[in-house]
């Protein structure tokens, strides 16, 4: 009668189930951002997110998703909603002021002074 090749279908007689089923909003947990550390002392880098019921399980899920292929010594997770950031529309406040050359190595012309000194003392 039931010709399915899926053992679950036969065991559970799923072909008989026909009712609809709806998941409630939020039922699939919170989103956690995952940060991956490749070796000790390296920066943790953002690699993606997992859905988890709390931070501890988020770590375990993160290990399954992001720690099983490439080299990894540690992972961080943080709930996405706990991250505070600037509004994307305010991006221009990060524009560099090109006048402030004194904050930059290129703003110091030592060779000019040395050459001038050498020329004068000849």
């Amino acid at each position: 009668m039931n010709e399915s090749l899926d053992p679950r279908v036969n065991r559970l007689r799923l072909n008989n189930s026909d009712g609809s089923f709806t998941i409630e909003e939020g039922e699939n947990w919170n989103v956690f951002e995952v940060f991956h550390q490749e070796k000790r002392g390296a920066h943790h880098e953002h690699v993606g997110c997992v859905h988890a019921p709390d931070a501890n399980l988020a770590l375990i899920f993160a290990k399954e998703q992001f720690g099983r292929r490439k080299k990894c010594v540690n992972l961080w997770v943080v709930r996405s909603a706990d991250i505070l950031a600037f509004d994307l529309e305010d991006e221009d406040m990060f524009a560099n002021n090109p006048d402030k050359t004194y904050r930059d190595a290129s703003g110091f012309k030592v060779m000019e002074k040395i050459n001038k000194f050498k020329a004068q003392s000849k």
Partner: protein
Amino acid sequence: MYGGGYIYDDPNRSRQQEEQLVDDPVKLAAFEARITRGEKIEPGDWMPAEYRRQLIRLIEQHAHSEVIGALPEGTWITRAPGFKRKLALIAKVQDEIGHGQLLYNAAETLGKSREAMINDLLSGKSKYSNVFNYPAETWADVTVIGFLIDAAAIVNQVANSKGSYGPYCRALERICYEESFHLKQGHDAFIELATGTPAQKAILQDALNRWWQPIMHFFGPPDKVSSHSEKLMQWKVKMASNDDMRNQFLDAYVPKIWELGLTLPDPSLKKDKETGKWEYSDPDWELFFEVIKGNGPCNKERLNVRKWAEEHGRWIRKALMREDERARTALPVA
């Protein structure tokens, strides 16, 4: 990977949640200029309503395909021939589910919740790749899926990874990296059957014959029928035409099948030396649309298994959700 968790944050949630009925022409021009310059669009950025809609549809369908695609293969975990093949298949099926998670996350950044996506899958509103509505009757079927369907998926995913939406591209980069292992283990199992005993060759040839049509269906209807708009190509949502991807796939894999002494059930399949394009008989496109509509051999079964998992997993999802976390449930996305 998707960048910017702040998009989930309530006080920071951008105004784009408000329905955008008409695209601001100035913003639209700036958006199109960015895409032309090869820039990636990120979650908080302004985007045309149709771009958002099409991307949600595309990424969501991709996510569903990864998860549903694990079912025909998962069926064979208990019956894989040998311990090594069983371990590899378990690892692969786990990857596919992981890919589903990555893609659901990428789709969520566009403003549709995971719950809404799964509900649309269960109700039949959202689609997934048609090939997964056919049964995996023998181990050779799993081998053909593992080699050729994954190969076809890679052609598609590599194209899409050069698209314009940042989170989708980054998810695909990681997916393609893992997918190369799938292809390798599929090819290895395929070669083992192809170079094995007469009985092994026979079941492989049989599986190949049955799967050839679904594989030809994989990239969708021919360009002359397909309704993909120029806009979607221009916005880098659709990266290559169906026929181009199909041709690319045939180019790479038909020689690999023929070199093993196997045949394909299409007498007109051959490469035109002049144009570099493959000629083939059209697969049954009416059947293709019938299966999309839900009338394939396994559509109902696949959704029933998926529905069962959600329904019977609910108690544990609820039990694991701590009271304080539940109170802090974040609405995902932009």
